[in-house]
């Protein structure tokens, strides 16, 4: 039975409750939504797909829920537990299709996803791939090709498997905008089935989708050898012209349009080299898609191309002589691989198990408890069924602990016992984390070069510090930026050195924004290198200047511990915990609280004694390892931060299983744990931190997150400064 034969009411009910199972190429999707427009779009655009329930395990779980923001009706999309920004209701269907495309772009670790349309020549099993950015005319061309007898493989994404470099048919609709939509409806009015029409505002035009023909759905999942790359360029007038493109240009463009190209590392590079060596590339300029179709159909060179069926990646890694006299480069030494199980996550596995009595905790979320247990004792997750994994993965992804869970699992002995679909998902997480780690380490080397002439301690904070210090528990943890802390005395010198090395302030920041940063925040305006684009935040304090508890950090910089083999330092173990807690509680960075609480637990329980500062001798050797709680209490009191730190520690104890001696919270906050849990700050943080229900969000959680992100209120002087209002007005405009 196909979807088109199912009564609309039944389809809507299934989408609303169990969800609908859809297979696009190699990936299994589960689609759920109570929105009528989504049901209408599915009934039209996927009419020829099989009607079935979701599989036991889906690669992508999509939810589309209606919501209202500032009185405007919108759609909020959730992908594998990750909540996205909202879409206007008029673009509901476009959001569905766009997010499906995003899944292909970012979702698979074993395939190169190129921003391209693809179709097979009529009567042939060879594919022509049309890479191009939005507006290049690939969708119009793909739609025309399909209606002219070509086999449509995809519109937005050409998915190449890395082993054979074949393109997979996805069986999805094509997207049509503005004039292309009018042209297709006029030209193919009898055959073209168009889905619900939406309206875009920038540029102002209509947007809709063309249903794939039954033949395109029939070949969904099959793979085809590429016959040619054709880079389309649509002009307003003129005859179509097909011109050859050199392999160098083709390689460059393939890298540019290969959305996940860099994340694939060496495997992606090998695939791209194989493709440009064996597949001819052309530039197609056209104004009429029908004429372009005829030109392509008649091009004998395209029809004659054959890509070798298999290849040996190693054979492509050979170096090439540039001239008769040049030397050879060292090659083949750095193929990125998924890390071996040994030596990773060992410390996590050695962590003391959660000793807190569940009865003492408050509102422990059961799937969350499973997740924490999995992080501590990964081997226990071997008992999970596929459908349990289907629930656990979105949760872990939502709280941003999936990469760390993946690494912990890859290090356990029973890795091979996991279902291949689960393994594939986890391997992809590890690959993404390796890419992130590599990117941050490279940035640190560049910063090191930029600051080479400056003789002052530079302290790394948070994620970059954990990466540089190679904390085993932090393998897999991702970070988007590099945070540096320097003494206020040398702030100007360090900033000047970074600027000298090419780092630039984000062009979106106005001069007023920059002044606001310097006057009221704890860091300078973020800078980035224009090529690498990793954000570098140069901190001079740990808390914003507007915070009444903000304090000078000279003593923290002085106590910082040098990272072995690096010019950078990391905060002293006690200050590290202090910073982790106050960063969560008092800087508005409450975006991924559970991951940060897990960091806190690891900082306390998994810190090897070897890197403790020698100034600390009063270690406790109990369940809490070597952590010096007395020193932490003393430090928090000296900075008047006992309440914030104590609340965060209690939260970590309740939800992440951190073992906190009962007297610590009392000593820090003056309250027993039971009383602290009734305080507003704890309740807000708890609501904001813990996802509940299938959607993992609620109005109360959004409200709590907003409130915690704006805690504490700035000091009076900040409100009286016009800069504050300039910044807030600009923020409101952007929103």
């Amino acid at each position, binding site marked *: 039975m196909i979807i088109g034969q199912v009564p609309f009411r039944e389809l809507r009910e299934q989408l609303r409750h169990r969800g609908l199972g859809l297979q696009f190429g190699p990936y299994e999707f589960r689609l759920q939504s109570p929105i009528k427009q989504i049901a209408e779009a599915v009934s039209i655009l996927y009419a020829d797909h099989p009607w079935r329930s979701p599989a036991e395990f889906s690669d992508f779980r999509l939810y589309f829920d209606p919501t209202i923001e500032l009185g405007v009706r919108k759609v909020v999309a959730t992908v594998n537990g990750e909540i996205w920004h909202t879409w206007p209701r008029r673009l509901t269907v476009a959001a569905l299709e766009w997010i499906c495309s995003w899944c292909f772009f970012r979702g698979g670790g074993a395939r190169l996803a190129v921003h391209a349309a693809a179709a097979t020549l009529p009567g042939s099993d060879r594919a022509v791939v049309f890479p191009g950015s939005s507006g290049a005319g690939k969708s119009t061309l793909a739609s025309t090709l399909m209606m002219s007898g070509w086999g449509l493989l995809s519109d937005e994404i050409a998915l190449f498997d890395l082993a054979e470099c074949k393109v997979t048919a996805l069986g999805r609709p094509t997207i049509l905008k503005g004039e292309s939509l009018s042209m297709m409806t006029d030209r193919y009015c009898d055959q073209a089935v168009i889905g619900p029409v939406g309206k875009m505002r920038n540029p102002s035009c209509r947007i809709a989708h063309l249903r794939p023909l039954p033949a395109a759905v029939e070949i969904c999942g099959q793979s085809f050898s590429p016959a040619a790359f054709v880079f389309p360029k649509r002009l307003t007038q003129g005859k179509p012209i097909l011109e050859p493109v*050199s392999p*160098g240009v083709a390689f460059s463009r393939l890298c540019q349009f290969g959305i996940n190209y860099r994340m694939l590392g060496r495997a992606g590079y090998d695939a791209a080299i194989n493709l440009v060596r064996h597949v001819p590339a052309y530039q197609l300029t056209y104004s009429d898609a029908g004429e372009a179709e005829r030109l392509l159909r008649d091009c004998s060179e395209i029809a004659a191309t054959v890509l070798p069926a298999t290849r040996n990646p190693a054979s492509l890694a050979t170096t090439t002589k540039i001239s008769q*006299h040049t*030397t050879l480069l060292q090659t*083949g030494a*750095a193929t990125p691989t998924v890390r071996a199980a040994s030596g990773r996550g060992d410390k996590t596995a050695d962590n003391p198990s959660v000793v807190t009595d569940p009865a003492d905790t408050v509102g422990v979320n059961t799937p969350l408890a499973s997740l924490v247990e999995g992080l501590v004792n990964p081997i226990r997750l071997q008992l999970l069924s596929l459908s349990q994994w289907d629930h656990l993965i979105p949760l872990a992804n939502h709280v941003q602990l999936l990469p760390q869970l993946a690494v912990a699992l890859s290090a356990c002995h029973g890795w091979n016992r996991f279902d291949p679909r689960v393994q594939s998902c986890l391997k992809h997480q590890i690959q993404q984390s390796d890419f992130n780690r590599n*990117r941050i380490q*490279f940035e640190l080397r560049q910063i090191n070069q930029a600051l*080479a002439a400056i003789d002052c301690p530079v302290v790394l904070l948070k994620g970059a510090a954990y990466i540089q210090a190679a904390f085993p528990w932090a393998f897999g943890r991702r970070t988007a930026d590099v945070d540096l802390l320097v003494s206020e005395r040398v702030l100007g010198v360090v900033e000047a050195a970074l600027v000298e090395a*090419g780092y630039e302030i984000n062009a979106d920041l106005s001069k007023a924004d920059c002044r606001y940063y310097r006057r009221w925040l704890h860091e300078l305006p973020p800078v980035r290198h224009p090529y690498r684009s990793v954000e570098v935040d140069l901190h001079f304090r740990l808390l914003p200047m507007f915070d009444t508890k903000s304090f000078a950090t000279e003593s923290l910089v002085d106590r910082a511990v040098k990272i072995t083999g690096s010019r950078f330092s990391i905060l002293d173990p006690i200050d590290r915990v202090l910073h982790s807690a106050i960063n969560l509680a008092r800087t508005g960075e409450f975006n991924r609280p559970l991951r940060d609480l897990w960091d806190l637990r690891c900082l306390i329980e998994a810190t090897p004694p070897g890197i403790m500062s020698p100034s600390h001798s009063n270690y406790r050797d109990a369940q809490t390892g070597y952590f010096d709680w007395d020193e932490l209490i003393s430090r928090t009191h000296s900075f008047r931060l006992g309440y914030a730190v104590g609340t965060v520690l209690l939260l970590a104890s309740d939800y992440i299983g951190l073992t906190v001696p009962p007297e610590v919270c009392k000593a820090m906050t003056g309250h027993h744990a039971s009383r602290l849990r009734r305080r507003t700050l704890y309740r807000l943080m708890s609501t904001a931190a813990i996802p509940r229900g299938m959607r993992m969000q609620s109005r109360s959680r959004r409200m709590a997150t907003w409130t915690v992100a704006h805690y504490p209120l700035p000091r009076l002087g900040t409100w009286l400064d016009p800069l504050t209002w300039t910044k807030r007005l600009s923020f409101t405009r952007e929103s």
Partner: protein
Amino acid sequence: MDQMDMVERQWRAVCQSIVLDSLGENEYAIYHADYWDSAVLNAVDACLLQALVARSGDLVPEELLVKRVASELCLSPDPSFYRYSHQALLQMAFIGLIQLKAGQIESKIDNLDSIR
């Protein structure tokens, strides 16, 4: 370009594990394993990079480097070749393949947009 600057400026390869593949007569694809990045170079660029990689991260004065490459490619080391080589080195530094001796400052790249 100031001749004095060129004499003093010293370069080193950042990454020793660079893969180079010929794509055509004058086009080379490189894979930068330290950064999982790739780029396309011409014969002169690739030869400059090879000369630096061959020195295993040691510093090489720019003038010496350019002369060696000119000699290997049988080209005349005239001022225009020096200028081109200098720009090529700057661009390779920009994308993180090579770097100047610590403390030396990179001068302006003529056409930054082309390599962003």
